[in-house]
């Protein structure tokens, strides 16, 4: 079942730029420049892209904050801005850089308020809250005014606040921004739990690719307002030629170099006793490589390095700089 549908979605901003001492010029920038996106129930979608790519702008259009300049968008069957209130009861939203809690109230009171605002039956509310309290370890700061919470504590509060009405879709704009490793882990495994339950759709933007690896089955990469990749992480690796690497430690340097299809030598260290091979394409498997190598030399140690998503994305963004200049 489709929960999010966007067709040729576009958002322009008019910005004024200085063009002299007093003169200002208006310029139109397309923050989101024709996006097509279909998201099904239960999807866990990672929405990534460099700074200014249009991620937040897209999320704002999907949640009813911004009215699109053109294009069609439906979330849970609603048109976000005209049917904003109806949509709001079906979705949960967390903006990492902006609090939605009541600044002067303790979390406990904020949560109680949200129950009234969303008209959640008391039993449902209590069940969801106690689950969040357990999983996110909220109890130590439940009675502290929000303004006194640390970023990590507040973010746990925000997540809880977004979930108390049992949303069908959860939109998260950089939910791990600024958190330390422990808090990041807590947030990630909490979200993973929600995703695994299978009935909540998750749309997440982040610059921390570990979030993506841990949480997202599907990856949409956006750049300058356009989608440049939509598929699984593996597909992204395949497309941008990410390579698995096999690192072997040998007792003695190779006498004759190994020649296999789709295998290249990436580096040779320790006087030839450590060789890093890169596997590209599929004609040679890691197992085959090791077997052939064992015929030529005695192997002391082997490790296989999975491709790092950072590398792929770095390559993707670098591509853009090369091709993008004129675009």
């Amino acid at each position, binding site marked *: 079942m489709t929960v999010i549908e966007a067709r040729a979605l576009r958002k322009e*901003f008019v910005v004024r730029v200085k063009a002299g001492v007093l003169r200002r010029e208006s310029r139109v920038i397309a923050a989101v420049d024709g996006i097509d996106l279909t998201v099904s129930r239960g999807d866990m979608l990672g929405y990534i892209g460099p700074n*200014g790519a249009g991620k*937040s702008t897209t999320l*704002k259009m999907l*949640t*009813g*904050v*911004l*009215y699109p300049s053109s294009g069609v968008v439906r979330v849970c069957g609603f048109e976000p*801005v*005209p*049917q*904003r*209130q*109806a949509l*709001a*009861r079906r*979705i949960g*939203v967390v*903006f990492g*850089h*902006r*609090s*939605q809690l*009541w*600044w*002067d*109230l303790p979390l406990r*009171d904020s949560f*109680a*308020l949200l129950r*009234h*605002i*969303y*008209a959640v039956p008391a039993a449902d509310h209590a069940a969801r809250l106690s689950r969040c309290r357990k999983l996110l370890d909220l109890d130590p700061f439940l009675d502290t*005014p929000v303004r006194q919470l640390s970023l990590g504590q507040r973010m746990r509060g925000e997540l809880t606040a977004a979930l108390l009405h049992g949303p069908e879709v959860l939109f998260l704009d950089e939910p791990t921004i600024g958190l330390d490793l422990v808090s990041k882990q807590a947030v990630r495994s909490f979200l993973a739990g929600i995703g695994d339950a299978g009935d909540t759709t998750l749309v997440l933007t982040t610059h921390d690719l570990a979030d993506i690896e841990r949480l997202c089955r599907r990856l949409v990469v956006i750049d300058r307002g356009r989608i440049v990749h939509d598929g699984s992480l593996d597909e992204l690796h395949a497309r941008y030629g990410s390579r698995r690497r096999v690192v072997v430690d040998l007792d003695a340097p190779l006498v004759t170099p190994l020649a296999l299809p789709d295998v290249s030598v990436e580096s040779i260290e320790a006087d030839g006793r450590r060789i890093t091979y890169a596997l590209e394409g599929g004609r040679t498997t890691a197992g085959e490589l090791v077997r052939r190598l064992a015929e030529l030399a005695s192997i002391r140690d082997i490790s296989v390095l999975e491709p790092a998503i950072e590398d792929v994305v770095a390559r993707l963004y670098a591509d853009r700089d090369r091709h993008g200049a004129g675009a």
Partner: protein
Amino acid sequence: MASGGWCSRVDSRWLTAYGPLVRAQVRSQAQYRASFVIDVAGSVLFGVLDVVAVFVLFRVSKTLAGFTFADVFLMTALANCAFAIADLLVGNVERLRVYVRSGLLDAVLVRPLGVLTQLAVMDVAARRVGRVVVAVGVLIVAAVNAGLALTAARLVLLVVAPAAGAVIFSAVFVGTASVAFWWIESGELGNALTYGGHDFTAYPMPIYGTVFRRLLAYGLGFAFVAYYPALALLDRRDPLGAPAGLGYASPLVAALVAAAAGLCWRRGVRHYRSTGS
């Protein structure tokens, strides 16, 4: 939202949410107790000063454009009461520009309540309640002082007029606030119309120049806040020649002004552009 415009649809959910929201707000503010007390005292003083101004005026002259002290006192009291109620209900929308400029409105827009409702409640100032209480008291004193010949119709008007006036002021609050959706640097422009409008409505219309009067009294409906209802209550003819019962039309005018403001508001919300970060 779809059907509500700025006068949010009053359904049960709205009511159940409103009470707890207001209570939470009062609790938040009570944390800053000193400023809370000063706020209440200040607002009561503010309400009283308006009346004092009329007293001072009539020490200088016996009549104002043909109206006696009692007449003008009634107009001032009506205007004051209408303004106090409007200020209590939607005075906060003036802060919209802060929300628009900072992008805080994002958080408001993702909640299932009207934007205006949330803004109104977000900083509901208990001090404004004090002002309404004072204003109602003053209105009663003014009505007694004027020795109104109270028919049933006039009695109804005495209650309806401040309410209609409150709607007119609320509309002005909302309309001027929504300018911020297009023009973030609108600054104090809104206050000129709202607080300025309050002073304008407190006196008989004939004292104003033609252009000014046409614009504010008829264009924005300000003459219907206190002037025409007061004439109807006092059973006096308008020196400017308007029909006698015009004061009874103030709810109609209020509805028109409110509709216009609602339209501005809804267009404004669509125009909201958030912030880049």
